[in-house]
Structure formats: structure tokens, C-alpha cells
């Protein structure tokens, strides 16, 4: 698995500009929400939970959406790249289990996203004055890691789909956006219409947003959300990997591992 993670790091490192551009993009994103938050400073808001301001609320939302995106679509994107470069069949001829392939290919996008998320929060703290004095960083790291693993189950399922139907990019891109939107990345779920709020409260990402905001802004109260995410990971990941193994077997049967 580590060999796959290291290889993806080497490939990503070979494109130097996107690293820098990604940080610039993150900075601009934060800047936009910083000024939106300034615009409505003092205005009455919906319950923002642990976040002391709308900017604080949305900063965690943006950072976690990056991780959700990587966890849920990173594997699918990597598989699609392997299909397009023709390396998927060469990879599948190697002595790797389905679990090693799934977690190894998902590993680097996930780790990279965690670093980006942490950098966004750090930038928000140092440049935009986000209050981080109460943060429980151990809780933050634990909750973020468990959230990533839980959401990887979804990513492995989408990856399985890409193995079978190949063009799954649209779905892979839609999932993190829809989940973020529904579960409180940019606004509290309490502002959603009643029936949508019910859905928003059970979407797994909601536990990630609540837990991480509690860890960053209150330094406590993240434990229950982390446990819920751990349970989702425990149940979801083995099921997702079983689907992935089935998708690989389908690729071998249909002879499509070497196809674009």
C-alpha cells in the first residue's frame, strides 16, 4: 500500500505548479467567505453550533469538504487515470489484494487533502484571525482521520463503479458537493426545509462537520461524532472493499482491465 502512496506522491510532485495554485485557490476561497462574513457581521444568524462566527463555521466547512472530496472521489480519479494511461492491467497483474489496491490508491489523495485542510485552517487562523486558542488538536486530528476513513467507504464504492462503467467522474464530483451542501459545509442544516434537514442530519459528513467544529472552536464535544464516524467506517469500509473486489473480478471476466 505504501508503495502506491509513494508513487502517487512522486507523480503529484512532478507537477509543481498545481501545488502552489491549490494553496492560492484555497486562500481566495477563504478570502471570499471572510468578506461575506464581514458583510453580515453583527447580523442575527441561524445556530452555528460550536463556531463563533459565520467565517469560522464555513472555514471548517471548506477544509472538510476538501477531505470529503478526496476520500469520496480520490480513488475513482486514480482508477480512471490508470485506465487512461493503460497501467491498470499492469497493476492488477501484480501480487496485490483488492484491499491493498483500494486503500493504496485512495491513500495519497486522502493524505494530501488532510494536509491541505490543515493548511487552510492554519491560514484562516494566522491571516484572517480565526480564533484557534480553544482548539483540541488531538481531537481535530482524530476526528478528521476517522471521518476520512469513514468517507473512504463511499470513495471505494465510487471507485468500484468506475472500474465497471469507466466514466464515473461526474458522479465522483457530485457526491462531495452534494454531501457538503446537505450536511452543513456552508450553512447550518437547520436552515434547510424540514424534509431536507432530516436527510442532512443523517448524512455521515454531518458528524464530521459537527465533530471538527467542536474540536477546533470548543476543544471538547467531538468524541461522540468521532465514535459515530468510526462505526460508519467499521461497517462501511469492509462492504465497500467487498464491492471493489467484485468489480475487479468483473474487470477480469469481461476483459476490460486493459480498456480505456
Amino acid at each position, binding site marked *: 500500500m505504501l*508503495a502506491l502512496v509513494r508513487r502517487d506522491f512522486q*507523480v503529484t510532485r512532478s507537477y509543481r505548479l498545481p501545488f502552489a495554485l491549490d494553496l492560492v485557490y484555497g486562500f481566495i476561497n477563504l478570502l471570499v467567505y471572510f468578506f461575506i462574513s464581514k458583510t453580515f457581521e453583527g447580523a442575527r444568524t441561524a445556530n452555528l453550533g460550536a463556531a463563533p462566527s459565520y467565517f469560522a463555521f464555513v472555514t471548517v466547512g471548506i477544509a472538510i469538504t476538501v477531505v470529503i472530496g478526496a476520500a469520496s472521489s480520490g480513488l475513482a480519479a486514480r482508477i480512471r487515470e490508470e485506465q487512461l*494511461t493503460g*497501467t491498470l*492491467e499492469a497493476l492488477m497483474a501484480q*501480487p496485490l489484494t483488492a484491499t491493498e489496491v483500494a486503500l493504496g490508491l485512495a491513500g495519497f489523495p486522502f493524505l494530501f487533502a488532510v494536509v491541505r485542510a490543515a493548511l487552510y485552517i492554519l491560514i484562516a487562523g494566522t491571516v484572517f484571525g480565526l480564533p484557534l486558542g480553544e482548539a483540541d488538536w488531538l481531537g481535530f486530528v482524530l476526528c478528521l482521520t476517522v471521518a476520512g476513513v469513514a468517507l473512504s467507504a463511499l470513495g471505494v464504492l465510487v471507485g468500484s463503479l468506475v472500474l465497471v462503467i469507466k466514466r464515473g467522474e461526474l458522479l465522483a464530483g457530485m457526491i462531495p458537493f452534494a454531501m457538503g451542501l446537505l450536511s452543513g459545509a456552508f450553512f447550518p442544516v437547520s436552515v434547510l426545509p424540514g424534509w431536507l434537514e432530516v436527510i442532512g442530519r443523517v448524512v455521515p459528513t454531518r458528524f464530521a462537520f459537527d465533530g471538527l467544529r467542536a474540536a477546533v472552536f470548543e476543544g471538547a464535544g467531538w468524541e461522540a461524532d468521532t465514535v459515530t464516524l468510526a462505526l460508519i467506517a467499521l461497517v462501511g469500509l469492509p462492504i465497500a472493499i467487498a464491492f471493489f473486489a467484485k468489480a475487479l473480478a468483473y474487470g*477480469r471476466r469481461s476483459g476490460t482491465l486493459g480498456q480505456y
Partner: protein
Amino acid sequence: MTNDGAVLSIQGLSRRFGSREVVRSLDLSMARGERIALWGPNGSGKTTVLRCVAGTLTPTAGRVEIVGHPAGALQARRLVGASLAQERSFYLRLSGHANLMFFARLRYDSEREAAAGVAALEDELELGEIARQRADRCSSGMIQQLAIARALLGDPAVILLDEPTKSLDADARGRLWAAIDRRPNAAVLFATHLDSDLEHCDERLSFPV
């Protein structure tokens, strides 16, 4: 090895793509050190047989076993080194060396063994320049030499080579066959349509079967 000493055993292998039967009821058994050429025109099913042995394609009917393990099983894939579809199967942003190191890490137990294995192959196949170049700057002949090196990583019991000399110059062809000669215990199954490759095999199997 199986009871009859075969490292590779193919029984009644058939493979169909849609309504087209590409391989029909193929039987083949290979002992250690044996070399068999699958010889025939393009599209006659040679690569299909190699893919079934590599485990990246499941037969429609029949059995393929590597030292008693079904092809495609983890234990079987450990024993097989394959060079398939060599024109496009490397990570183009990485150097030849980084590519080989990646695949070596999947086959050797430690980083040190992987590095030693790659260094030995780069030396044996004289890959110095190819190893330094990024894969997207390599010619098809250079990529083919990398693919051969990848197939030899970890001293596999069964070596599969798909059109191994197609893009190689005379020197590189010489190095390839010399490397195969230095592995007298490996069973080598290769697909070719070139008559000149046949002098390097013990037996040839004409396709289509």
C-alpha cells in the same frame, strides 16, 4: 510444482469476447526452464492466452494454474512476471528507475531488496539512460526494455512476454535473450509473429488454435 512437474498448466482454455471465440480448448503444460512461443498473426489469440495466465483475464472455460494455484490468485501472481501491452503501461511522469522501483516494491519483501533487484536488472539489461529518463521521454523501444525488466523483477517462475522484440534494436534483442538464458529455471511463454524469435524457443504453438 504440480505432481507432473509443470509450473504452468493450461487445460481446455477457451476465451470468448461476445460472439467471437478467440481461443478454443487450448491445452499446454510447461516445466521449469522450458520456452514456448505462441506464434501467429495479429489478432489470433496469443495475447489473450498470456492475459489469462497473468490473471488479468478470466477464461470463459478451462483452467489455468501456476504451480498449482489458479491464475489470478494472489499466490499465482507472485510467481508470474509479465510484459503485456508494453507501449503504454508505465507512469509517464516518473523516470524509468522510479517506475521499476514502484513495481519492485510490490514484489520484494523490503525496500533494500527492491533497490538491489532493480539495480541488478538495470545493470544486466544496460538500462542506464532509460532508467534516468522520464517515461514520457522514452521511445517505444526504450519502454519495451523497461517492460521486460519489469517482467523479470523478483525472479518469477513463469515469464510472459508479449511481442518482446517488436521495437528492439539488435543489441537490445541480444540482451533480452541473454537475460532469459541466465534464468534457466524460469518457464518462458512468449507471443510473437516474428520468425527470428522462434530460434529462442524449444517449441512453438501456432495460432489460431
